[in-house]
């Protein structure tokens, strides 16, 4: 017997708005690719480790050419240093390769996430190995770090990692908390400034209507996560771009092991297009701003993903990998016959 807990009942989807919203939702679900044909996208926050090859195929088809995978909490706490080490290695190794198989350039940020910062004995050991990974090719920042419960331990390791970012001259990708977000966001920014980190080296993530103004006014980058139910809906995102413009604003999917949408960036671009936002603004918030912000790491060569002709076919198709025994990289999902 189980008593239905209110927490388990589903929150209303962000598509459940008025008649206009419903109509838009339908267009986006069915025909949105028409609105974004030829556009390129950069998703600066997506956890591919938790996603399937179907998602990689869908990302590539929707025009996502490059992504950043921040190191994060895998859904349950790690119990030892070795699993942290293997996880970081997979972000610069296996996952990077898996992504390349679909023609998507994969970058990552490396850091100790806020939840696991609360296990201080382990956190100390993790801090020692972080520098081994921060200087790797394709590591475009320290992240995602910041506050979750806003504990003393979280603050301690946030500060320590800000120092690491300064030594390595890397941008910082800051996770802001679900609960007490406004306070956590302000605290994250003031601590970064206290450590003399330039605001244009800091991407404050998971913003909403309540936090965006202060983030932009202080000179930080403002990232918005389009994530069903718990974070931003993309209709609200359109309104934010209308109100604040496209400078220093970027959108991401933060797709992970939860109910999330890896196509959040292209879908939001389509909605912006439908709602009359200029192509230039769309390009900035779904592509260029992320490149400008994380490019400060010196690790992003746009030619790596802007010229698909240069994708190394041997790397892409000749590998022995997710594509086995000379398989074609794409499958027809409507076909009953599997050959």
């Amino acid at each position, binding site marked *: 017997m189980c008593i239905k807990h209110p927490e388990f009942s589903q929150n209303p989807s962000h598509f459940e708005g008025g008649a206009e919203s419903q109509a838009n939702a339908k267009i986006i679900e069915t025909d949105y690719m028409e609105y974004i044909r030829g556009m390129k996208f950069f998703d600066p926050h997506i956890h591919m480790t938790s996603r399937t090859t179907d998602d990689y195929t869908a990302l590539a088809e929707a025009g996502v050419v490059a992504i950043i995978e921040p190191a994060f909490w895998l859904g349950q706490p790690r119990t030892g240093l070795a699993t942290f*080490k293997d996880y*970081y*290695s997979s972000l*610069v*190794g*296996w996952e*990077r*390769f898996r992504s390349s198989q679909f023609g998507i350039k994969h970058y990552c940020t490396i850091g100790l996430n806020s939840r696991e910062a609360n296990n201080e004995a382990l956190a100390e050991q993790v801090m020692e*190995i972080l520098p*081994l*990974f921060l*200087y*790797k*090719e*394709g590591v475009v920042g320290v992240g995602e770090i910041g506050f979750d419960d806003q504990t003393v331990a979280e603050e301690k390791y946030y500060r320590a990692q800000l120092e690491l970012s300064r030594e390595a001259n890397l941008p910082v990708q800051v996770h802001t908390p679900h609960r007490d977000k406004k306070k956590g966001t302000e605290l994250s920014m003031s601590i970064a400034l206290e450590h003399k980190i330039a605001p244009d080296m800091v991407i404050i993530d998971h913003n909403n209507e309540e936090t965006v103004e202060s983030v932009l006014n202080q000179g930080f980058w403002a990232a918005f996560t389009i994530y069903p139910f718990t974070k931003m809906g993309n209709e609200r995102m359109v309104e934010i771009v209308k109100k604040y413009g496209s400078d220093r604003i970027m959108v991401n999917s933060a797709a992970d092991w939860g109910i999330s949408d890896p196509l959040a960036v292209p879908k939001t671009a389509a909605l912006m297009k439908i709602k009359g936002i200029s192509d230039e603004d769309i390009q900035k918030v779904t592509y260029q701003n992320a490149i400008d912000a994380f490019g400060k790491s*010196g690790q992003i060569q746009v030619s790596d993903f802007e010229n698909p002709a240069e994708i190394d076919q*041997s*790397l892409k198709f*000749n*590998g*022995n*990998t*997710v594509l*086995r*025994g*000379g398989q074609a990289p794409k499958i027809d999902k409507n076909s009953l016959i599997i050959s």
Partner: protein
Amino acid sequence: MVIANQTDYRKQIYDVIKGNVSSIENEWIETKLKGGKTAILTAFVATPRFISKSEIKTDSNLNIQNWSLDQLVRIFFLLSFQSQNKEEYCKSIDLLFETAEINEYVALISALSYLPYPEYWQLRATDAVRSNIGPVLNAIAFNNTYPKDHFTELAWNQLVLKCIFNDKPIKEIIGLEERSNYNLAQSISNLAHERWAAGRNITPQAWRLVRNFVDESIFRDLEKLLKSDNKNDNLAAALVSLDSKNPNALELLKNHAELVQEIKQKNISWAVID
């Protein structure tokens, strides 16, 4: 411990590097070399931040024509790191392996033959064969003398079979003919049977590895290959038969005189069969 082979190789690489780097890059390398253990190992990791990825221009006979400059410099740093103490040395290199990003992993595997204590790296080498990261498997499989010199028969056969299974160019495996063996020939024949059952094929090139081991079962494979619609299958079977000195196989060729004639006239060898 330093092996002579390593010292020579390191010096040759250094010469190539000097012919390719800018003065700023050269200065960075020199500075790192003067540092201690940590400086050199950190430089191994940080190389792409300071050295360009341009393709190397060289007329040296080192097999590095397709390498990028940063990869070559990485290997140079790896060979520049020395230690009198085996335990300390291996621990340091193990850490590089455990935290390696793809390009670092490729550099480490490519240099295995030139590292001291070659036997110690067996597991790293066979793990590279197990890797599903294409460039890592390529690094142990092709233009690398480590498998030929140090792999057991089982590990060797696994390497060759995996390359055949994944349609990789086995021609580029060093020691391919030298280390061919009966068990490998049987496995290749078995793999072909599985593929044929599924309506697929294996690369005709693979059959070169069975020519000294033609038994009754492989003889039947040759018969089948001679009837194949793929010209390269026919040529492969004919080449195996000619080389095998197996009387039955030679007898079989009497029905395919035109094929034998073509091989002789056009001087067809395994090098041109794909």
